[in-house]
């Protein structure tokens, strides 16, 4: 499935994550991640986001994620919502 619009979900509050998604013209999945816990949890956060994209069967998506220490289920929920809004 493809997304058609730019959409976002989440906030920049502590323990939340702001996810912005837009269509990727080249059909790739691209992720740009900033996190206040990059050193400790950067890889995990990346995995959670990409796993959710895959699970929803989305292709051709650029994601910008600004993490303020969100837990995994928050991250997954924000990604899911942003994608749903962009379809």
């Amino acid at each position: 499935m493809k997304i058609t619009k730019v959409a976002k979900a989440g906030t920049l509050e502590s323990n939340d994550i702001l996810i912005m998604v837009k269509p990727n013209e080249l059909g790739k999945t691209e992720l740009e991640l900033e996190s206040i816990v990059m050193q400790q949890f950067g890889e995990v956060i990346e995995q959670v986001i990409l796993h959710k994209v895959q699970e929803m069967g989305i292709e051709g998506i650029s994601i910008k994620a600004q993490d303020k220490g969100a837990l995994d289920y928050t991250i997954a929920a924000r990604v899911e919502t942003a994608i749903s809004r962009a379809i």
Partner: protein
Amino acid sequence: MKTILGREIPDYIEGYGQVRPFQGAFSKVGVKNRTAVKLTSVIPNEHKVLPSLEDALDKLEIADGMTISFHHHLRNGDYVLNIVMERLAARGVKDLTVAASSIFPIHAPLVEHIESGVVSGLVANYISGPVAEAVSRGELKKPAIMQTHGGRARAIESGDLHIDVAFLAAPTADNYGNINGVYGNAACGSLGYAVADAEYADKTIAITDHLVPYPAYPIEISQVFIDYIVKIDSIGDPKGIVSGTTRITKDPVALIIAKRATEVIKASGLVREGMSFQTGAGGTSLAVAAELKKIMQHEGVVGSFASGGITGYLVEMLEEGLFRSLFDVQCFDLKAIESYRDNPTHQFMSASMYGNPHTKGAVVNNLDIMILGATEIDTDFNVNVTTGSSGMIMGGSGGHSDTAAGSKLAIVVTNLMKARLPIIKDKVITVTTPGESIDVVVTERGIAVNPKRVDLLEKLRMTNLPLMTIEELKLLAEKITGVPKGVETSEKIVAVVEYRDGSVIDIVRKVDLVS
């Protein structure tokens, strides 16, 4: 070699010298000496007020490699350190050691002086902001020495920290060097952290923007310690010096932690006539004071004293008769300054009287209950308030180790997790305060008692407070957050953490910055 806490520390650190490893909180007590002080006597008809800072710097003859000191009562509103350093840099002085009791974000210009070699050493009890980051990046030539409030006074009085020139920011001074902090545009209240500097430096200069006719009153620091006085336009920005009012947090998690901490205090049996108490100005700490107040009122208990940095909230408790006195080393807000100025039961305390372990008894020794914060705690109850989760310097002991060591009940109050980071670790990145001084950790999800406090554990078992082992508490957090990846640091030592007795409790290494 290893400290008693198992921390590996070199025997000798370049730029610091021989290391005395930490061997326990009270391993270095006994007979001590204070150092002799060099001074130039003043005879009648000599004048101490100099026309300008430039004239003063001429007279002070500050040479390469000297140690100059500052106090931090003007906190993030302090102009004095920056003005003096700028003038010294312009004069081409090199390799100075800046012994400032604390360094704040306003002292950012110090970073340039570190880079240009004007400053090669730092000694402080607390460092935050750009200077802390520069030290963590390894820009300072020598390792920074991080002390405690009591430890700094000890180091100065023993001669371990020799000060060539002390620059005393003085909210009010007279023309013969009597100083107080309660009047003037930059009023900050108590000048407790400046006392040892004034008494022990080879030369002491008061820098004021409020020069009053002789004699100033009250006198916090006496004329007998002051060589010169200089008036400048402004020594500090009141907005950065004190906060208007201190408010109790509304954060529900912090309030739960505060409530639980107070239940621990109650169960410990320490809520009794003559009790003593100290807490910080942070949200959760202050909320504990609010909860404790209710219990003291309910039980009709009058405490002997509250101490430390004083906030308006503690002043209210004094005025309501819940404590007979306050010991004030530093005022945090306007209400505290007014009370300190006007109420004789709100008393002055120097850093040495507050927490110096090598005196005939510091105030911390008389403390029953101490409420502390933590950046990290490990399963041995060691606390880190020096570095953040990335290993970057972002604070320091201040009075943390002093009060933890002295008090009967040292309680760490903290969220179990902060922005996804679990607070309890197998090993803290940096040990600031040894676990032997910490009695109990209170979080929103559970309470862990130091196993050596069997007596306290027995008392708390009679309550329905959620007791856990510290390991259980750690696992509980990691179940929610995941296990964080360790932080990588390089070999280079950027700071030496001195315990209050002058032994080295830990070292801080350079942070490898990740982009």
